[in-house]
């Protein structure tokens, strides 16, 4: 395997409390190779989003990353970056699609203005150059360039989500973090978007950190999967192994809680 694009070592994150601290992430270590689609699964509160935020240092107090933790992006420790370096690092190396990302567009700005914002700030592009680049980026996600003049409310949810992804790809990041990117969309649109991401990462070569609690979906799109339980990474393996021969008891129980579309229905015992 070539040098990993993201390497997390002994990551410990606490939420500081008045009386006691809550350890949300417990000694987590994993790598993501360039171009790899890595899935992180677990239920709400297991710490998966906390990790996502920490990777681009977007975590806020009371979250505190403990000393001894390492987050290396392309060999550089993100936790060591000063303010200016961090500004250059975010979006250029690691871009993030948030959960409800379709609501993260500014409702009073046109799509073009939101592209310009990123392209001007990070690359100093002029309006004209930014418009051209934005049109190219929209084409990547199958949106006609005439939508640049539209406002977010004039686009459907799936379209807005694809626009956010296009903005994320504006600076050719090495890693795209997607935190439950399609939870608010219905299955047909969800499939279209993930197919699109899969094609783009193969063409452009970025890696993906994909976070969801939908294990079935995750197995379909990911190369490797990590399963989290109460802040710990309990199992990491390639997607098919996680599906066909899960090792950890919790992974097995997660599978047992997913109803099936065809064949024998699961019959979990009461209280499972």
């Amino acid at each position, binding site marked *: 395997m070539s040098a990993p694009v993201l390497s997390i070592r002994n990551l410990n994150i606490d939420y500081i409390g008045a009386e006691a601290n809550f350890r949300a992430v417990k000694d987590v270590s994993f790598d993501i190779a360039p171009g790899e689609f890595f899935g992180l699964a677990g*239920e*709400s509160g297991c710490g998966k989003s906390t990790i996502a935020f920490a990777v681009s240092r977007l975590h806020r107090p009371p979250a505190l990353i403990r000393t001894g933790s390492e987050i290396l992006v392309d060999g550089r420790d993100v936790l060591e970056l000063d303010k200016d370096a961090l500004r250059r690092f975010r979006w250029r190396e690691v871009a993030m699609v948030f959960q409800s990302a379709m609501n993260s567009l500014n409702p009073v700005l046109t799509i073009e203005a939101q592209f310009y914002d990123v392209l001007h700030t990070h690359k100093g592009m002029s309006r004209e150059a930014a418009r051209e680049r934005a049109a190219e980026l929209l084409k990547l996600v*199958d949106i006609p360039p005439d939508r640049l003049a539209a406002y977010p409310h004039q686009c459907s*949810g799936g379209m807005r989500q694809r626009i956010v992804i296009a903005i994320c790809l504006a600076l050719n990041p090495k890693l795209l973090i997607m935190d439950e990117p399609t939870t608010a*969309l*219905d*299955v*047909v*649109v*969800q*499939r*279209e978007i*993930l*197919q*699109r991401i*899969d*094609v783009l990462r193969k063409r452009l070569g970025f890696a993906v950190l994909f976070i969801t*609690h*939908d*294990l*079935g*979906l995750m*197995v*379909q*799109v990911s190369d490797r999967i990590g399963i989290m339980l109460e802040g710990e990474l309990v199992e990491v393996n390639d997607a098919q192994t996680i*599906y066909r021969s899960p090792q950890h008891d919790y992974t097995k*129980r*997660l599978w047992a*809680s*997913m*109803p*099936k*579309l*065809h064949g024998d*229905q*699961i019959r*979990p015992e*009461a209280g*499972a």
Partner: protein
Amino acid sequence: MSENQPILALDNVSKIFGRANQPIYAARSVSFGLHAGRTLALVGESGSGKTTAARLIMREYHPDEGRLLFRGEPLGKASAKAIKAYRASVQMVFQDPFSSLNPAHTIRYHLERPLRLHQRQLGGSERRAAAEALLERVKLDPKLIMGKFPHELSGGQRQRISIARALAVNPQVIVADEPTSMLDVSVRLGILNLLNDMKKQDNLALLYITHDIATARFVAEDIMVMYAGQIVEWGAMDSVLDHPQHPYTRLLLAAVPDPDRRFDAAQPGELEQIETIRRQSALPQPDIQQVGENHFIRPIPDMVLG
């Protein structure tokens, strides 16, 4: 009441929004019946009209065409008393357990209020006992839960409260609109199992509305697929899921996450084909075709049955 008479039925119901010269059919000629002891799943993507169907049943919307039948009687011009009886018989469990409970009131209030309104004969101590029995039915401990406020409970616990509240008035029909979509996968099954148990114990007729077809299969015997206000395919669950006949149903099923199939890149022309299916499925289709013992579709033009 005969075996085949549904407790509640929509008979050719349409609900129209928009202007007269540009009507938008949120529901178009929708017909189905809910039977005691059975669960009917209504599936479709957002905007397909699932929630409009629920609102028509709950009488939040009134049909622009067609009739709502309760025990065979049309409900259009029923008396206020009959409407109140209807409300006690038909209850709803909402999608979002975080906003469907009043944050300013305790769980006791939520459970005793429907009893106070619909079972006036109960005295204070009887009402308290009834509320406790309701919590026990949904497998929550009254001693721990009764005095709590909604924000002190988890999403799954809150959804159990919603179910208990719906059961308070001894309903015959429960409409559950995406009751598990905001819950973690690990607690979803508990809620679905609870709905199933209640259905069996009380011989309830259940309408389960969802976009998650796998959970629909878990709880329901029958299924309807809705798109653009029309029910495009319906029938026995496994017949529809294993042998879908309508192109839209096939499209929907192909998009359901399935770990046995890896995502492939869209084939050339695939997106156009999806658009064609969507466009044609949205046109009014008055014909109904039987394709199996208990399996029907509204065919679209040029459809090849396979």
